[in-house]
């Protein structure tokens, strides 16, 4: 019997269509790896990118030359522009503003054929610390209200280039998706005086059917009302509302669990395409009692079609409990 499940944070319903009972092997569609071609992110091609804004490189190695182990560069053809004022205005009932923002690319390692799941954990930690460093730097600009960090792995997930990279977009507004989570979390807190995510963690630990892995500081689960098969969330175990305010020593544990989870996905689903996104509190309410930062990982195994677009419902053919069992 299919089951309707409600997400306790934003109240979104999903259909867990257990009859379809899809196992990991039903989703395995080996990704075509694009080979050859000119890669503007590879060492030696630094002149094809805009000048770097951050890099891990030896002390004596000049910027924008080879020798780096990680580089951050502004997007060469950005969706939003860094220059100018917002100039918020209305036209009747319609609101608009100038397309101001920052769009950066984090080149995670020099090796074109590496993947984030295969880099050593210490390199993974560098990537996460770079996210933190760029967020803190960009928030010095008061035009930015939210910084979205995301990664597309594989062509199906939107990666046009195989060279390992993630992206950051600093926005002059808080995205609607995050507002829904913040509002849901605030509503729950006002009613129960507890963080909804902390309660989820407590219940998941008690039930122990959707947990994939945990370490001293972090926990990974397949959420109860997963929209997609093998969707994964990674949370800090203790309440923490802001990714960038997390103490530096905890990033070692985050890198460890994150790398482990990606390896498990690769094993279970044969290197699936995926997206991951950071969800954290906006700069205006960084430290709070109601929101809990986390990463969401969405393997791209099913297509979102008319029903999902039209209704906001998602049909998930794999029960989260089964997905967790496969990934454990």
């Amino acid at each position, binding site marked *: 019997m299919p089951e309707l499940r409600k997400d306790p944070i934003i109240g979104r319903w999903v259909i867990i269509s257990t009859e379809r009972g899809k196992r990991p092997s039903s989703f395995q569609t080996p990704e075509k790896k694009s080979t050859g*071609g*000119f890669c*503007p*992110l590879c060492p030696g091609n630094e002149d094809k990118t805009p000048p770097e804004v951050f890099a891990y490189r030896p002390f004596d190695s000049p910027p924008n030359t080879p020798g780096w182990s990680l580089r951050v560069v502004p997007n*060469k*053809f950005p969706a939003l522009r860094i220059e100018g004022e917002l100039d918020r205005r209305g036209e009747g009932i319609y609101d608009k503003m100038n397309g101001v923002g920052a769009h950066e*690319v984090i080149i995670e390692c020099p090796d074109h054929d590496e993947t984030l799941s295969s880099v050593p954990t210490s390199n993974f930690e560098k990537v996460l610390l770079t996210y933190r460093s760029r967020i803190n730097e960009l928030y010095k600009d008061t035009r930015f209200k939210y910084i979205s960090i995301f990664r597309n792995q594989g062509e199906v997930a*939107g990666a*046009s*280039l195989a060279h390992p990279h993630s992206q950051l977009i600093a926005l002059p507004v808080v995205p609607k998706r995050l507002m829904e989570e913040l509002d849901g979390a605030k509503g729950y807190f006002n009613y129960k005086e507890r963080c909804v995510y902390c309660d989820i963690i407590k219940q998941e630990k008690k039930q122990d059917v959707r947990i994939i892995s945990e370490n001293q500081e972090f926990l990974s689960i397949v959420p109860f009302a997963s929209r997609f098969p093998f969707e994964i969330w990674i949370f800090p175990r203790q309440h923490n509302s802001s990714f960038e305010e997390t103490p530096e020593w905890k990033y070692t544990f985050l890198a460890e669990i994150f790398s482990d989870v990606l390896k498990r996905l690769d094993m279970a689903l044969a290197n699936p395409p995926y997206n991951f996104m950071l969800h954290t509190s906006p700069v205006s309410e960084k430290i709070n009692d109601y929101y809990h930062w986390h990463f969401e990982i969405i393997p791209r195994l099913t297509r979102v079609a008319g029903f999902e677009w039209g209704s906001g419902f998602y049909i998930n053919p794999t029960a989260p409990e089964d997905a967790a069992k496969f990934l454990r």
Partner: protein
Amino acid sequence: MSKILVVEDEKNVRLLYKEELQDLGYEVIQASNGGEAVEKFDIHRPDLIILDIQLAGLNGIETMNIIRKKSRDVPIILCTAYGEYKRDIRTWASDAYITKSADLKELLSIVKKILAI
């Protein structure tokens, strides 16, 4: 006189580019697809390439990849009527990316800027 290779599958657009660029004093070589562009690149070694992305057969990005293996420095301006390529990091191998428009002001100003360097 600087040589410009114009790669564009629509004949009218190609001729428009040719006339405007010749008026500015440039020599113009034309190609209507990616394969022809690679051949003409080898023969003429242009100083600049204006390359449409949406081409039959080899598309503009694939064509650019082949040309980049032969020369990493020849300036390339990518042109497209579609915004979706803006998110494609492979376009970074080019020197400029413009959205096609009937008004060639932007294209011509980029051409002048690149060839003045």
